[in-house]
C-alpha cells in the first residue's frame, strides 16, 4: 500500500468514526432537525409582515428566511465542536490515537470533514422543510448548492475555532460562555431576519464585516432570480480565506496540545 492511499484510508477511517458517533446519538440528531424547524416556524410567523416594508427582494418572508436559518443553524451546531474534542481529550481517546501510527493530519481532518457532512445534511433538510412550508427558490438547484457550500464553509470556520478553543482552554464553561455570548449578536448583526435596507446604518456596516452575514449574502445572491456572481465570489472568497486561517489555527493549537501532554 503506498503512502497516499494509506493516508486517504486513514482520513476515511477517522471521519467514519466521528460520523458514527453522531448517528448513534438520536437525541442529537433530533435536535439538529427539530431546532431549525422550530426556528423556521417561529421566526417565519413572528416576522411575517416585515416583508411588507420592502427591500427583501420577495413578497414571501419564508423565501427570505430559509437561507438565514440555514446559515444560523450551521453556526449554532458547529460552535459546539470543541465540546466533543474536549471529551476525547478527557477520555484519553485522543492520546490513544496519538500513540498509533495514524497521521496527525487525519485526526484533524476528520473533525473538519465530519462537521462539513453534518452541516450539509442539516442545510438540505432545512431547504426541504422550507419547500414544504411553501418557500420559493428562484435560483434553482445551483443557488441551493451554493447556499449549502457557504454554510459548510461557515461551519468549518466556527467548528475549527471551537476545536482550537477546546484544546486550548480545556474547560466546558469557557466554550459555553463564549458561544452563548457570540451566538445572538452574530445572528442579529446579520441579514438573517431583516433586509439590509431596513437595518440601522451602523448595523449594516457591522454586518458587512460579519462572516455569518457573508454566508447569507452568498446564499441569497446565488438563489436570486438574477444571481449576483460578483457578490458570491467576493464574500465566498472571504469565507474560504477564513476557513483556511481557522483550520490552520486549530492545527497549531493541536501542536501546542501535544506539547502540553
Amino acid at each position, binding site marked *: 500500500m503506498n503512502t497516499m492511499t494509506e493516508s486517504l484510508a486513514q482520513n476515511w477511517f477517522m471521519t467514519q468514526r466521528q460520523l458514527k458517533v453522531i448517528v448513534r446519538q438520536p437525541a442529537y440528531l433530533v435536535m439538529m432537525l427539530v431546532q431549525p424547524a422550530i426556528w423556521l416556524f417561529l421566526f417565519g410567523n413572528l416576522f411575517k409582515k416585515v416583508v411588507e416594508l420592502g427591500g427583501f427582494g420577495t413578497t414571501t418572508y419564508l423565501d427570505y428566511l430559509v437561507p438565514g436559518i440555514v446559515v444560523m443553524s450551521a453556526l449554532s451546531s458547529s460552535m459546539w465542536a470543541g465540546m466533543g474534542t474536549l471529551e476525547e481529550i478527557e477520555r*484519553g*481517546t485522543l492520546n490513544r490515537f496519538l*500513540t*498509533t501510527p495514524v497521521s496527525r493530519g487525519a485526526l484533524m481532518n476528520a473533525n473538519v470533514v465530519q462537521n462539513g457532512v453534518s452541516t450539509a445534511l442539516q442545510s438540505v433538510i432545512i431547504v426541504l422543510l422550507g419547500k414544504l412550508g411553501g418557500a420559493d427558490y428562484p435560483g434553482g438547484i445551483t443557488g441551493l448548492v451554493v447556499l449549502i457550500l457557504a454554510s459548510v464553509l461557515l461551519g468549518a470556520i466556527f467548528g475549527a475555532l471551537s476545536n482550537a478553543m477546546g484544546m486550548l482552554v480545556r474547560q466546558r464553561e469557557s466554550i459555553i460562555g463564549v458561544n452563548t455570548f457570540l451566538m445572538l449578536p452574530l445572528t442579529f448583526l446579520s441579514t438573517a431576519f431583516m433586509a439590509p435596507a431596513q437595518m440601522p446604518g451602523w448595523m449594516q456596516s457591522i454586518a458587512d464585516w460579519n462572516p455569518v452575514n457573508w454566508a447569507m449574502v452568498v446564499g441569497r445572491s446565488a438563489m436570486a432570480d438574477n444571481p449576483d456572481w460578483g457578490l458570491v465570489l467576493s464574500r465566498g472568497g472571504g469565507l474560504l480565506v477564513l476557513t483556511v486561517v481557522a483550520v490552520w489555527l486549530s492545527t497549531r493549537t493541536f501542536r501546542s496540545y501535544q506539547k502540553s501532554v
Partner: protein
Amino acid sequence: MQSSQGSALPARAGAPAVQAHELTKTYPGDVTALSGMSLTVEAGTVFGLLGPNGAGKSTTVKILTTLARPDSGSATVAGHDALRHPDRVRRAIGVVAQKSGADPMATGRENLQLQGRLYGLRGTDLTRRVDELLERFDLAEAGKRQVKGYSGGMQRRLDVALGLVHRPEVLFLDEPTTGLDPEARTAMWDEIARLAGDEGLTILLTTHYLEEADRLAERIAIVDRGRVVVEGTPDALKGELRGDAVHLELRAQAQDADVLRAALAALPGVHEVLIDGRRISVRTEDGAAAVPALLAALERAGAAVAAATVARPSLDDVYLRYAGRRFSEAEAAHDTPHAELVTAGGAR
C-alpha cells in the same frame, strides 16, 4: 521506509527493549515531573515502575510512547530513537494508558477494528485478529455492544486488547488495575501474567500498588520525585534489607514516643524503630526471637500492647529505606483521589 504491516519486527537479540537515559521534564508552572530518569528494560521481561502518584511514572511512559517530549535526555524503544523517529516507535509499541481511550459510542469490535486499521491491518487478517482478541479477553459477546455499557473490568480488558491488536514488541501498561474492584483486579493480574509468557513480549508496567509490582514484575524500579531510587528483582530488593519487621500495635497512643523509641532501640539486634501514633515498627535481626524482649521493654515503659506481628521485609520497607518515607505517606502527600492504598501483605 517502514512497512505498513501490522506485526512488528522481531526484537534484536540481546538489545534492551527500552532504554531511557537521564530524562528530565518540567511542566509549566515549574512542576518538575522528571529529574534524571534512567532505566533499562531487557527484551522479553516484565518491568515494573513502582512509585506513589506524582512520582513521574506516567510522564516517563508518555515520553517512551512518543506522546510527550523530554526537556533533555534520550530514549530508545524497540531499537528506535523515540525522539528522532517517533513514527517507528509507534509501530512497535502497544499502549494501555491510565484512562480508557476506547470510544464509548462504538462497539468493542469496532474499536478493535479501527485500531487494527490504523496499523495497516485489513480484510480477513483484521477480522481474524479481532475475533482472536475478543475471544481471548472474554469479550466475544460484549464485542457486539457499545462500550459505554461495559463494566470497569470489561473496559480495561478491551483497553489491553486494543494495545495488542498489531502484536507489538513492547507493551506499556500504565496503572492497569487502578479503579478496578478486587475481583477484576485479580483477573487482570492473571491476564498480565499470561501476557508475560507470550513469546518475546516486553511489558513495562507502572503501578502504585506494591503488591501488584511484587506479583507481576521480574524487575522493579522504585521511582520517587522524578527519578529511579533503586532497581532490582523484588526478592533481591527485599533481601537487601537485613532482618525482619516486627509491627506492634499499642492499646493507646504512646505518651512519650521518644522514651519508647530509646527503650526499644537499646535492645540487642534492633536496627531501627519507627513510631507512628499507636503503631510501632521495629527492624530486627530475628523477628520471632525478638518479640518477647520487645514486649517486655514496652511493658516496663508502661505501654500496653494490643497486637504484634512479625513480617519478612516488604516492598513498603524497601521504599521506606530508599525514598526516606512510607509509601502511604508519599501517596497522601501528593493528595490523590485514590483513597485506597494497598501495601504488601505483612506476612509475605
